[in-house]
C-alpha cells in the first residue's frame, strides 16, 4: 500500500483515492459505513484529474 500510494504521489494523483481497510466478514455494518465514508470523501475530491487529460 505504501508503495502504491507513493507511486501515485510521484505522478501527482492523490493517494487519498485509494483506501485500504481490514474488515471482517462478520462486520457488515462497518463495511457499509466505510464504503459510505469513502464515497463521501471521493465526492469531495471530485473526478480524477487524469480523466480530464487527453488520455487515461
Amino acid at each position, binding site marked *: *500500500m*505504501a*508503495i*502504491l*500510494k*507513493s*507511486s*501515485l*504521489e*510521484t*505522478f*501527482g*494523483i492523490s493517494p487519498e483515492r485509494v483506501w485500504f481497510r481490514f474488515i471482517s466478514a462478520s462486520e457488515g455494518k462497518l463495511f457499509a459505513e466505510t464504503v459510505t465514508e469513502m464515497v463521501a470523501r471521493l465526492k469531495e475530491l471530485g473526478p480524477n*484529474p*487524469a*480523466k*480530464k*487529460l*487527453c*488520455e*487515461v
Partner: protein
Amino acid sequence: MKTFTLSTGAGNLNNALASFFSGLLESGVVDALLAPREVKSKSNVVMTLITDPAGLKSISPLAPVAMQNAARMVASLTVTDPGQKIGVVLRSCETRALVELVKLQQANLDNLVIIGMDCLGTFEPLDYRRLITGGGWDLEQWLTAAAGGETAAGEYNIRSACAMCGHITAEHAHISIGWAGLNPAAELLIEADGELAARLAGLGLKEAAANPGREQAMERIRAARQAHKEQRIQEFAGLTGDLSAMVDELAGCLRCYNCRQACPICFCQECVFISPVFRHTPEDYLGWARMKGALEMPTDTLLFHLTRINHMGVSCVGCGHCESACPSKLPLSVLFQVAGQRVQDIFGYVPGRSAEEELPQTTYRENELEPR
C-alpha cells in the same frame, strides 16, 4: 580479506585478465565463466559463457560498455541448479540487481563465484561503437583517466544513470578486481577471502599492501557523483507530483516496452500490458475520444509507467538500462531515482544490499503508512 596484485603492463591488460581467468578455469575454481568479450569487429562487447580457456582470448571485462544488465543472464543460469560452479564477471549494478532477483526467487547464489569489477560508468552502446569505429580509442588510456574520475572520451561521456552512480566497487563479490584510484595500465588489485584467497595465491598472484590513495580517490569520485545526482533530482523534482507535467514528459513513449525488456528486475513471464486487459476495441477508443473530445494514442501510457514504478521502484538499483533502451530517451533513470527513493525510504530498504533482507512488498507491516 587478502589483496593481491595482477601486473598488467602497457597493452597487456586484457591478456593479463585472460590468463588470470584461465587459471580459475583450469584449477577448477570455476567450471564456466560468464564474462564480457569483444566481438570480432571489436565494436561491441557482449557477455559470453566460456568453458574452454581458449575462448578467453578476446575478453575485455573492463571495457566501458554493457549491452544489458547481466543479472538477468545470471538468473537464466541459476534459476534451476546448474550443477557446476559458474564464475560471473559483474559490475555493481549487476550484483545488486542479482541480489534483488534472488529475493524475487528468480536466481540462486549457491553455485556462483561472483567476480566483481570496479566500474566508473559505461557508455551508451551506440556511443561506444562510434568511439571504436572512429579510431583512436585506447582502453587503457580511458581506464587510466577514469580511475581518477575523468570519464569523458571526445564528445561522448558515460550514460546518465552512471554519471549519478557512486557504486564503484561491486558488492557481494567473492573475488574483486579493482582499478579505481590506481594505474590500471600497470596493475590491477585482486581481493578475495578465506579458502578462495588461498587458491588465488596458488595461481601465482603476488600479495599486495593496502593502498590508502585508492580509497581517497573513490571517496572523491563518490562525492562528485552524489552532488550530480542531487542536482538531477532537484531539476526533476518540479515535475513530480504534477500530473499534467508528468503526462507531458512521458508523451514521447512509444509503448515499445524496451524499458520493461531491459529492466533486470522486471521478470514476469506474462505482463499485464500484453494481456487482453489492454487490448481495446475500436469502440473503446472511439468512446473515450468522444467522452474527452480528443484521445492521445497509444493510450494507457501513464498507467504503463505508473505500473512500472509501482512494481519496480522498490528494487530499482539505478542501472539505467531502461533509459538506454528507450528510443525516445525519456528521463527514466532520474524518474526511477526519485520514485524509488521515496518508497525505499518508507521501508528503510536499500535494494541490492542483502539477499537476506525481506522485500517490502512481501512483508506485512501494520504501520507502513505511519507516520505520514
